[in-house]
């Protein structure tokens, strides 16, 4: 770990300003991903701005009938919030499908959106990785790639966005609220938040340097059946091979987002429109896929997982 300086701030505006003031700064809240990456010197911030004192730890109701989730609300608090469990159950279910209890207690809503890929070549600093060292090449493409992405990936990088929470937020049409160093704020639809990185895989979101997430808002409840099915090799503490977040009505109409296959939670309009036709929807979701030999199974797995989710929504197969 490289030496770094550290400060605590007490408001979002102060945080953004502090980050802008110090070069090479990062925000830290739960630190569950950042600290690991700093120990490996994959992340090497020169300055850490601790935002845990900024008071963004509440879930409030919006004028539009939705919820505003403060960026510092812990995964545990968010998943167990009665309003979330009742009206946005897919979110609650996605969160508890991820990490472990200890990690969810520390991890925050804003930080979770920014967790970085789990590609093993990203983590092993001896290996070529365009995400870690732009321009150095990608050792993963012809390497061990079973976990990696099949759609939205590029020649430069076939990593995935690894999280669960964001997949549910995507299906719920959540919006990310931020503040910039100059004090201006903006609202970014979650679908636009994570980039399809092309040949710049080290730039993973549309956030500008020093821009801080302050909240995530949810539109008013959608109703329907909320399902999150995460397919993985073991039953806990594993990243998704494929996950499906779905909000469906009794006929199987609705919307789905897929995790574990792309640089961001994967949602395709044509797929939603095709529901309840699983085959057509799955084809739309995996259109243009460029898998490796090792992860080509994910194409079939998307369809089969979607079919299972659909059956569950119809109450056909418990």
């Amino acid at each position, binding site marked *: *770990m490289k030496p770094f300086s550290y400060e605590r701030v007490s408001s979002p505006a102060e945080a953004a300003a502090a980050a802008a003031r110090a070069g090479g700064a990062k925000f830290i809240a739960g630190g569950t991903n950042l600290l690991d990456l700093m120990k490996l010197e994959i992340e090497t911030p020169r300055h850490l701005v601790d935002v845990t004192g900024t008071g963004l730890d509440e879930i409030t109701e919006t004028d539009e009938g939705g919820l505003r989730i403060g960026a510092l609300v812990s995964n545990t608090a968010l998943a167990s919030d009665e309003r979330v469990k009742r009206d946005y159950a897919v979110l609650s279910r996605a969160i508890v499908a991820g990490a472990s209890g200890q990690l969810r207690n520390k991890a925050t809503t804003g930080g979770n959106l920014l967790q970085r890929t789990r590609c093993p070549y990203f983590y092993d600093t001896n290996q070529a990785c365009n995400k870690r060292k732009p321009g150095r090449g990608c*050792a993963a493409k012809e390497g061990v790639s079973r976990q990696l992405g099949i759609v939205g990936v590029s020649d430069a990088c076939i990593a995935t966005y690894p999280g669960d929470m964001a997949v549910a937020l995507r299906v719920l049409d959540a919006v990310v609220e931020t503040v910039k160093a100059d004090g201006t704020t903006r609202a970014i639809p979650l679908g636009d938040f994570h980039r399809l990185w092309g040949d710049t895989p080290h730039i993973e979101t549309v956030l500008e340097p020093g821009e801080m997430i302050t909240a995530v808002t949810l539109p008013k409840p959608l109703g329907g059946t909320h399902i999150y099915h995460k397919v993985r*090799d073991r039953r806990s503490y*594993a990243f998704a091979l494929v996950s499906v977040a779905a909000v469906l009505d009794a006929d199987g109409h609705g919307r789905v987002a897929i995790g574990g296959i792309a640089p961001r939670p994967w949602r395709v309009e044509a797929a939603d429109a095709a529901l309840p036709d699983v085959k057509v929807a799955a084809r739309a979701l995996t259109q243009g896929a460029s898998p490796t030999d090792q992860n080509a*199974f994910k194409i079939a797995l998307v369809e089969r*997982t979607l079919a299972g989710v659909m059956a569950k929504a119809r109450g056909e197969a418990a």
Partner: protein
Amino acid sequence: MKYTTPAGDTVIDRQRVVGQPTTRIDGPLKVTGHAPYAYERHDVAANQAYGYIVPSAIAKGRVRSIDLAEAKAQPGVITILTTTEVDELPLGMGHTVPLFGGSEIRFYHQALALVVAETFEQARAAAKLVRVDYERTQGNHDFHALAPDAPLVEGSDGPDVSKVGDFEAAYASAPVSIDVTYETPHESHAMMEPHASIAAWEGEKLTLWTSNQMIAWSKQAVAKMLDLDPANVRLDSPFLGGGFGAKLFVRVDAVVAALAAKKAGRPVKVMLDRPLVFNNTTHRSATIQRLRFGAERDGRLTAISHECTSGNLAGQEGENGIAQTRLLYAGANRYTAQRIARLDLPEANAMRAPGETAGLMALEGAMDELAEKLGMDPVELRIVNDTQVDPETPNRPYSSRMMVECLRRGAEAFGWDKRNKTPGGMREGRWLIGHGMAVGFRNSVQMKSAARVRLSSNGKLTVETDMTDIGTGSYTILAQTAAEMLGLPLEDVTVTLGDSDMPASCGSGGQWGAQNSTSGVYAACVKLREDIAGRFAMDPNTAEFIDGEIRAGAESRKLTEATASGEIVAEDSVEYDELSKKYQQSTFAGHFVEIAVDAYTGETYVRRMLAACAAGRILNPISARSQVIGAMTMGVGGALTEELAVDTRFGFFVNHDLAGYEVPVHADIPHQEVIFLDELDAIASPMKAKGVGELGLCGVGAAVANALYNATGVRVREYPLTLDKYLDKLPAV
């Protein structure tokens, strides 16, 4: 004590303490965080500095130069030890390649330097600034590419091939036959505690506080590698956070700590980073195993062939997947052979039940396939092929073999007769339900083991031996043994382990620890009893030790009378000679598994598992059960998830952390049942006990694979059974 003839009735047969379900006597220390594990022994030596290893970034080649300028200038750095400043260390026991020294690089994450600093963080930060200039050479990293041309393993008596009768002829004429090939992957021990050592010198005397399963072996290895008089080497390893074979032999943490401590002039501590556990230490080799069986229509095997290819660096055997096939089933015509591919990957070596774990994953899968082809119950097929003698050497009987009883008891308790009998034929909602079974088999090994016992003037007993407790329960069963022998309550016995200054035990490995280390304590206690009885002119053979007294006829004396003039010390060992040549000594289990497979996604979960085990006297049903359920859990990992993924271009295990190498989590293991059959094996040990620590693993993988076939109708012969290998063969959705 020379154990040359099977024991008759002994004091142990009373089973007042031995054999009783007893919770771990070291449990409170562990759950309160007070058990001293190697890296946390802050009190044993003052002024400990922290070492951090610089690992090789390439798998094969050599070091041209190492630039330390920047690293040395970092705050807190005391010294840096580099591989090029020492000659290649001699091989210690069990080593395939040198642990340290010289400029040649033979595997990824080989230790090239150790940065020593005042704090761990300083050492780690400076280690990242050590610049190594490499000369890279292309290695052979692809096991599958090399396997077809792999030569036979050369043993001391020539190639490892065994032929009995005429396999080819019997196979060709058998009315029913199969020819199948199974594959098992490279696996990691993935124990909780990484390798760790603290080294301190006093003049020429070296002390290593370390985490090691085999203290006497390792003391000799350290002395050899560092060119020291063994009398000047002390190892202390009272607690281990698991080992599974990864700590049978000294690893690099110990030697670089010792070398750096000398260089720094102060104690140095080193723990391997988790990735180094996977790539710098040892692993179980992958295997490719071809099995051919010929059988009569009644299921009797007439021809058995098992060929296993594994891989390793030059100079060491691989995974001996055929070992159990030479012993397990009857059959007149047999062929077994072992091949080895020379791989440039980290060193393969013993991992829990080496040989049988991988071998049974193939053998017992093939038996399931044969049963199906015969239209026979898989349990009955095994029973039909039972043998009570070594099938290659029929004048060599088993000391005790209860395979059939394990299968019958297990099948009954599991409800085997109510299982799904049609592959793919049982469904509950979205779940395809399957049942599978396999035989568990693992040898019981006789090893010399010594101990010393001290009866102090207050009547309390201390047991001293360099035996280790790797989480198995050694402390407890040794205390039980001594308490039984001297008629003392368990709380009056203290057990001290893991110190090389104590009598050399059998150590922990190969499931030989329990019966041999307790037998060593038994032998020492026999001597102590003789000494005490002699003081009162009693006959030690008829005197009874009970409730802190020695009694003979109407006479009774308190043990504290015997120690009135000072403590009484006795030391002895158990040693064996011909019994293992005359008798085949093995342990047996019947493993039964029920799984559920998601018909949509192919996710496979174990729902319940049962093992019926015969392993001689069960010294402590609680710790023995704990061993077996832990092993069953490891078996589920081996069946479903565990695989070291190889980058065949660069020659390393890619998933080198506990997120990428997936061992089972609690949610994967919902229900386990263990049944111990009543068995006393007086040939195996004076305690009439055999090993059990590995038996619980042997066969589990195949039972799971057979259950997967039963659930889905899809036979997967390539472990681990991840869903990508059968998804496309599941029913359409």
